């Protein structure tokens, strides 16, 4: 019967329109984020006044890609007591955010949503959409996710040669393909020597193993102020010699640690390094 079909169709359309409308009606009004990565996703998507506080790391330019924006928000240290007193109706946390604080907030009846750690660049749109749904801003999230997906696609064309590279950070920590930073390297067209050396997820790679692998590029993390032995390994003459004979790059934690659209800046940096290596262009 055409009439009932029309009604059914009208009901379906209504449901589709209502679904976001219901979310809009229930959108949280006081959101507190306790994790560097949820801080940045929330700042990108939240309506004015909706986000009450972000973590103190978010305003540190060494770790955050949105340090300037974050200074507009009161910072929290991720302690249950201060977060509870902000009277949030939604708390955003990461999987590894202080477990005790998160458990305490949940006991106190606060709604806490935990975001998983991103290990693949393809996971980022999902997290953007998840954040958009939570904040009642699905349209903005869909648009951001679409832009990100299109930008990512631009990097995924095949490259003629994949030079070998290694990531090397404080304490000789390296990461392989099963991590977000490893994925950045792969997407930029490098072959990661850590993966073939048996550090697919990451771990402490002894300096002599790295030197013997002799990768074409060694990408080290930028040191923090205050000298430590942990970071001294990145100034080791043996590592310098490997880098001098080949290529060196550096990674800024701010663009590398979180699954946000800013991660594509890191991919672009690495792709530029690879092009310099393979074509010899400056």
């Amino acid at each position, binding site marked *: 019967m055409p009439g009932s079909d029309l009604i059914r169709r009208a009901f379906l359309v209504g449901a589709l329109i209502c679904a976001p409308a219901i979310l809009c009606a229930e959108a949280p009004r006081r959101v507190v984020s306790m994790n560097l990565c949820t801080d940045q996703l929330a700042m990108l998507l939240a309506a004015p006044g909706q986000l009450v506080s972000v973590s103190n790391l978010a305003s540190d330019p060494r770790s955050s890609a949105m340090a300037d924006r974050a200074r507009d928000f009161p910072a929290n240290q991720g302690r249950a007591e201060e977060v509870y007193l902000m009277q949030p109706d939604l708390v955003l946390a990461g999987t590894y955010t202080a477990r005790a604080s998160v458990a305490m907030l949940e006991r106190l009846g606060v709604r806490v949503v935990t975001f998983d750690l991103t290990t693949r660049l393809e996971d980022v749109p999902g997290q953007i959409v998840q954040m958009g749904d939570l904040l009642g801003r699905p349209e903005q999230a869909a648009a951001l996710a679409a832009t990100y997906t299109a930008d990512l696609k631009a990097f995924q064309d095949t490259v003629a040669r994949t030079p070998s590279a290694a990531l090397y950070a404080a*304490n000789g920590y390296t990461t392989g393909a099963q991590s977000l930073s490893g994925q950045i390297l792969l997407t930029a067209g490098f072959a990661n020597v850590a993966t073939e050396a048996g550090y697919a997820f990451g771990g402490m790679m002894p300096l002599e*193993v790295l*030197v013997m692998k002799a990768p074409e590029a060694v990408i080290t993390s930028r040191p923090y102020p205050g*000298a*430590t032995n*942990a970071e001294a390994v990145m100034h080791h*003459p*043996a590592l310098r010699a490997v880098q001098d004979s080949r290529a060196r790059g550096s990674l800024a934690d701010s663009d590398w640690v979180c699954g946000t659209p800013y991660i594509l800046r890191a991919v672009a940096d690495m792709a530029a390094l690879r092009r310099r290596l393979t074509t010899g262009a400056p």
Partner: protein
Amino acid sequence: MMTLTRLLATLVGVLFVAALVIGPAGTGPVASLRALILGDGGPLTLVMREIRLPRALLAAMIGAALGLAGAAMQGFLRNPLADPGLIGVSGSAALGAVIALQTGVATMTAFALPVSALAGALIGVLLVLLLAGPRGGSLTLILAGIAISALAGALTSLVLNLSPNPFAANEIVFWMMGSLADRSMTHVWIALPLIVLGSAMLLSLGRGLDALTLGEDAAQAMGINLARLQLTLILGTAAVVGASTAVAGAIGFIGLVVPHVLRGFVGARPGRLLPASALGGAVMLLAADIAVRMILPERNLKLGVLTALVGAPLFLHLIYRTRRAIA
């Protein structure tokens, strides 16, 4: 005596070569040594010359320095419990080094780091000698050492906790336990001058320490200037412990174990014990550093863990033996 020296020197040589050919890269010993000496311009030469050679050199140098410092302090205080690690000198040196690193003084000139550690060690030695008194009775010596170690350790932790660097706080264990992982030739050059200078000062004490075994009056009658002897001991100890700790952290018990083991072989003469303890210290630290690379190579085990596992039971034994003197 000569056979003991020859035996210890041979052991140092054998362990030095072993330290050069053992490592996580897992290359053959012959290829490794050829790459070290002849140099093929490849990565193995880089590994041998810039990673393994400085590590082996530092193990030998620092082990010798700590063994010598222990033997000299024990000879001067006539007390087998005196060890730079136990009486807080290493801990004070670590504090000096950490202050230099965290204030940025260490980046100004290469020698700021060892000199600051030397200053820390000097304050530690002076405090211990002041607290324990000229005769260095066991009880006051150990109590003074505990207090200075605790204070220096707490201040080291405080400085590292206040650092803007997120990795600094994890470094507390390096400064308390010591490690030679990923040290370079730069560290060898930083530590070498002060270790050579301090060792020369300590080795020159042989005759004075021998005379001192007969008592202070007898030593003075034999023409030993006790004030000068004490000053040389203090400066020499501060120099070797400061330079060692600045590049490798506080490695304990070498100065306790080595003189104790060797004392019987040299007829309990402190003058002879000095060079023997230097060689013995090199043997012990080279062996310990090889062991940390063979047991749990992926966990970056600290040297102090091994030296304490050997040294602490001996320390307990020494306390048990000297308890009548303490009581």
